[in-house]
């Protein structure tokens, strides 16, 4: 009887390494595609609003910008005043780079009649953060060639990072899950009115003076993007209005970016409405959610003011 035991041959280092890399690729591909499916299956929430703005909206009035755009302009009021459908594409924490990418996506499909671009102080400041924020466009990189140039501004390695299927959905797993859950649709904080999300708080602090010196290194790329935004709207005969929202603070210094916005809008004959120094709002802290954002009541009053101003201009 043969008593020798056949020993199991252990795989070599190279074989193990290949298996490990294969495992990583399979997991990345599988989980990445699952996240992609769930991401685009959402029909509410902040992520969905970007998808809707890029892929679906055909509204004649579009509002662009960051959180101040998203929380300050009530589409229902614009619809009533102009008898045209309106959608608010503003997104928290994003900048002009995001707005321009969305504009490109919209222009691929149609031309709206009126565009309101809400800009911020320090819009053209040189900092990496604003480029990093275009992370919110990563899920669209694959199927929306028009956003790629903006995404590539983030870093020269973005192409390599995007080889991973998971990377575009980095840090989004919980938001995507919540976006797909039924209870999400009931949540007041997520619920939007044609993109607009009202803020609830009432600011109780006093008016402060912003003493931050507003001369800073300017980013020519951002200035060029702003100029392109304006030019492309004019080329398509769109009524473009540039706005600076009210703040509950007094600015001690003139902001360099705002000076450039004034200059460019004057050059292209585009109306620029500056409400940042509006004394009415400076006397009504109850209209603010925090020093930079209006609450629902404030947004109501502000939207009406902007509508009146546009009607005067037209």
């Amino acid at each position, binding site marked *: 009887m043969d008593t020798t035991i056949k020993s199991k041959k252990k795989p070599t*280092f190279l074989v193990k390494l290949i298996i490990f890399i294969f*495992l990583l690729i399979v997991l990345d591909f599988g989980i990445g595609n699952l996240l992609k499916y769930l991401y685009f299956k959402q029909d509410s929430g902040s992520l969905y609003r970007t998808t809707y703005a890029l892929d679906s909206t055909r509204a004649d009035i579009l509002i662009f910008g960051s959180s101040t755009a998203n929380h300050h302009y009530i589409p229902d009021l614009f619809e009533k005043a102009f008898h045209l459908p309106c959608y608010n594409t503003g997104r928290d924490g994003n900048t002009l780079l995001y707005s321009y990418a969305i504009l490109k996506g919209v222009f691929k499909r149609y031309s709206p009649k009126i565009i309101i671009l809400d800009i911020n102080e320090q819009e053209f400041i040189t900092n990496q953060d604003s480029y990093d924020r275009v992370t919110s466009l990563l899920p669209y990189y694959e199927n929306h060639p028009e956003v790629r140039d903006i995404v590539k501004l983030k870093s020269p390695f973005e192409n390599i990072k995007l080889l991973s299927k998971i990377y575009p959905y980095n*840090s989004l797993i*919980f938001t995507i899950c919540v976006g797909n859950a039924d209870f999400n649709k009931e949540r007041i904080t997520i619920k939007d009115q044609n993109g607009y999300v009202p803020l609830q708080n009432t600011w109780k602090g006093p008016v402060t003076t912003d003493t931050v010196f507003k001369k800073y290194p300017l980013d020519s790329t951002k200035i060029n993007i702003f100029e392109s935004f304006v030019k492309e709207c004019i080329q398509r005969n769109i009524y473009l209005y540039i706005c600076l929202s009210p703040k509950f603070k007094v600015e001690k210094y003139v902001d360099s970016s705002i000076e450039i916005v004034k200059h460019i809008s004057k050059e292209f004959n585009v109306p620029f409405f500056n409400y940042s120094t509006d004394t009415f709002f400076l006397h009504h802290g109850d209209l603010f959610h925090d020093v930079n954002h209006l609450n629902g009541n404030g947004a109501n009053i502000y939207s009406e003011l902007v509508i009146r101003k546009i009607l005067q201009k037209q």
Partner: protein
Amino acid sequence: MAYYLVPVKFRNYFLIAVSAFFYIYAGPVYFLLLAGLILSNYLIGLKLDLSVEEKARKGYLVLGISINLGTLIFFKYWNFLGANLVKLLSVFHLGFNFPYSDILLPLGLSYYIFQFIGYLVDIYWKHEKAERDFPRFSLFILFFPKILVGPIERAGNLLPQLAKNIYFENDNIVEGGKRIAWGLFKKLVVADRIAMYQTAVMSTLDQQSGITILFATLLYSFQVYADFSGYTDIAIGVARLFGYNLIENFKRPFLAKNMGDFWRRWHISLSSWVNDYVFTPIAFKKRSWGILGVFYSLTLSFLIIGFWHGSTWNYLLFGLLQAVALMYEYATRKFRKKLARSVPTVIYNNLSILIMFLYVSFCLIIFRTDSFSSAGSIIKAIYTHPGGLFYDTPSTLFFILIGCMIMMLYDIQKESKIFRFNLFSNKNWIVQQVSYALLLIYIMLAGVFDGGQFIYLAF
């Protein structure tokens, strides 16, 4: 890979070149400073080793320590000393223009200065022989994986390894890779995620509730641990890829049951350095003072540890708080032993761990701020600001808590083996591979890679 393609006898030269490039890239002038220090310490080490007369040996040691400490003081503490001198003289209405320096702190200065001093003292004590081979000595200091955050290497550990020929070994690649993966997890998933929350909360302290500030304060302890030990894991892992074992710097510090235990687990290369070269010699010298000698040595040692971290009074106070806790422990050791016997071990141990964690978190409030008043305002705000917990979106909390939980479970498992089934050191290589693949996938899912993830501030 390039390293292993280089012929064995040239591999150290290759590492010297890579390390030198790293320093030169960071600042060519600082590389010249480092090169000068390497040369002077090499020569002083040789002289110290070859000298027979005690007086000459002591002279070389004093010269070496003076050069190293002088460099450290000039680059790191000059402005601090100047500002305080000016303040002190102004009390006596004596004003003068102190020549403040605007030179940046050279990369890794505090780490390599301590390494130089340790090397010279070891030779003086005849624990080590001076390194004759200049390239090997240069690599002992320059070795790039440890430059940013240590560990502070010892001659006895690294120099013998550098003397050996290093050959490609699968184990080095696998173990190094595993260590890097854990380091990336700690840094990108835990530390950087908490850092976002910290920035959001601390930049708006006036508007945050006490519970939020308390939560941020407790999280800061995890952030510092994950950040520092994460970087160290990456350094140790990278060194292992090249075939070298750097000394361990962290051993599950948040499972420490007392302050002494904590400092045997936290920044071990610094605490053991101070223990060997400061505490023990002074405590021995002052042994006739009894308990006061111990207290004196402890205070001095921890003031050095505190001051090593930075040139502000806060770091000194941080060190002092550690010393106070250790003195308390030393004075009450008999009472605490009795107490431990009268309380069930599980309760006593866990309570000790909790108290330690809270005390360390409190000390880190001092550590993180740049003035006593800002530390005071954080502590005051914890008690006085009303309101609920700020967390932006639920996912912010989920990511932070899951990250901390995985990190702590890994530590607890290593410490006490509470789970029978071990994922990351399972004997079955497939289980291990799947575990590490999932770890990397989780890093991709939850890691903070840039400013793309942020906490939106709207109160």
